[in-house]
């Protein structure tokens, strides 16, 4: 049977995801029968789907079952692009956290509770966070504490507090700690003024101390009970704590890029016009914008109906773009934080649990605008290697060559020796023509830069 079990779907005995003949399916095991039936009959499943909080799914024939332990087989809606919390900006993680808490609150109203609160159960679909694991729910028994509280604090509250109080770049720390940031580490990295914030004092600092005190177990005696109204108050307390976290909007290198770059208004609109012309001819389905900044050019493709993923190294630029997208209710762009020179690797159990950058479904078109000089000069990557790297990604490449006469490149070379004897338009064409044919080439008005539309041969 040509079945492939999804690599990260093995921890929960209630069921697992698998692929069969190109379909993505979920097996619900018999152990989960009662809670599954309750989840459906109570109306919680339909309510969450209707509110756009849970990914849609439907029951299918159990001929697809993988083991005899199957109770039901369901087919969830596929997520168009899988991304991970260490690739999300501050606001994306914040929205994912608030979605999780909102789901928990609604679940309690129906007599259910989330048995886990991992950030990997949230994905972005149509520009918004949704829960993808419909087996996360269990019946709520009066008095039971929330099992997922620890996980919520580590996956959501700790990294958000770190980004807010310590450094916005700390979203990447989640790549090292796949079950969320350990609270003792998080509290050590947070400034001491966070102890004056009552919520952070309780949910992080006190929580970390409690974890340490009881790390070797040793608890015997009567069972802890938490009244439902107090549990709801706890969820509200977490919601308030998350909502009150903010990041400073001081500019990082790129967030106010367009105010300081050498694009005059004329150059800017010329660049947009040329790219629009290329897009109209290409008609891309899926586009990756590498170095998208705040998405001015990504939107040329998205307006066309293309599914766009916009990558940038600057977490503040990605955050700005994401907030714009939420505000405008744009459903076909997903901005993510990514360093092209050090993209997300494959990690987790057996190095296969979380997919690396190159393993995700590839686009048909790529933008590499105002990027090449950062790779070739700031990062010393030879043009030949850049060409070989880019050709893996898409049939069409729209790339902007930025010559040494450009003011940005002059700035990059200001404080260093110019060892880049092979950095020129001629060399660029020579290296890229090994993998691509030049469909079009246009100089941007009022600028030293040239746009190329290349097609893979």
């Amino acid at each position, binding site marked *: 049977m040509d079945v492939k079990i999804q690599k990260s779907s093995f921890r929960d005995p209630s069921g697992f995801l698998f692929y069969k003949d190109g379909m993505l399916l979920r097996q619900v095991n018999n152990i989960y029968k009662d809670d599954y039936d309750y989840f459906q009959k109570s109306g919680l499943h339909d309510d969450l789907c209707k509110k756009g909080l849970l990914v849609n799914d439907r029951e299918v024939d159990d001929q697809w079952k993988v083991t005899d332990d199957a109770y039901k087989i369901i087919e969830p809606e596929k997520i168009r692009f899988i991304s991970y919390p260490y690739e999300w900006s501050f606001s994306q993680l914040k929205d994912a956290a*608030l979605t999780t808490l909102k789901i928990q609150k609604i679940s309690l109203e129906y007599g259910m509770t989330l048995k886990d609160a991992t950030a990997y159960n949230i994905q972005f679909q149509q520009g918004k966070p949704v829960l993808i694991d419909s087996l996360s729910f269990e019946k709520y028994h009066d008095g039971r504490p929330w099992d997922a509280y620890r996980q919520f604090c580590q996956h959501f509250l700790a990294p958000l507090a770190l980004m807010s109080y310590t450094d916005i770049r700390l979203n990447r720390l989640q790549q090292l700690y796949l079950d969320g940031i350990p609270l003792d580490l998080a509290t050590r990295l947070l400034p001491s003024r966070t102890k004056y914030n009552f919520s952070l004092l309780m949910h992080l600092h006190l929580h970390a101390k409690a974890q340490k005190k009881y790390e070797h177990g040793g608890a015997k005696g009567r069972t802890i009970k938490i009244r439902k109204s107090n549990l709801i108050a706890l969820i509200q307390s977490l919601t308030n704590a998350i909502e009150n976290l903010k990041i400073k909007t001081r500019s990082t290198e790129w967030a106010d890029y367009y105010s300081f770059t050498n694009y005059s208004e004329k150059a800017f609109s010329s660049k947009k016009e040329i790219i629009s012309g290329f897009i109209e001819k290409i008609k891309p389905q899926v586009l990756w914008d590498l170095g998208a900044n705040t998405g001015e050019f990504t939107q040329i493709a998205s307006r066309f109906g293309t599914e766009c993923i916009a990558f940038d190294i600057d977490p503040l630029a990605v955050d700005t773009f994401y907030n714009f997208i939420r505000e405008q209710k744009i459903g076909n762009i997903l901005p993510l934080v990514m360093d092209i020179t050090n993209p997300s690797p494959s990690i987790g159990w057996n190095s296969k649990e979380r997919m690396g950058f190159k393993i995700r479904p590839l686009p048909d078109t790529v933008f590499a605008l105002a990027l090449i000089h950062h790779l070739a000069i700031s990062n010393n990557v030879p043009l030949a290697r850049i060409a070989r790297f880019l050709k893996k990604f898409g049939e069409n490449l729209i790339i902007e060559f930025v010559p040494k006469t450009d003011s940005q490149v002059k700035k990059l070379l200001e404080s260093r020796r110019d060892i880049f004897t092979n950095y020129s338009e001629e060399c660029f064409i020579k290296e890229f023509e090994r993998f691509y044919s030049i469909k079009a080439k246009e100089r941007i008005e009022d600028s030293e830069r040239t746009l190329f539309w290349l097609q893979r041969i």
Partner: protein
Amino acid sequence: MDWISVNLFNFPLLSVIPHRLAYIDPGTGSIIVQAAIAAAAGVAIAVKLYWDRLLKFLGIRKSVKNEISGNNDMSENAEGKGSETHS
């Protein structure tokens, strides 16, 4: 802050019986601190609710604020999941 942990963690030791479906480790310390915070949060909300009602009764405040709803960014999710393809 340590006087809090000294007092909090020295009451009779308590246990948690895992739910049969629970597959992640809830963490003993996490459960204990959760119980303490939930109790405190419950009290805080009750106090706020009664304070608001008192003010309303005395005519100082117009209406009782809805305590549990929370200021919610995600309310747009509740309005349906349609977001247009930007075209």
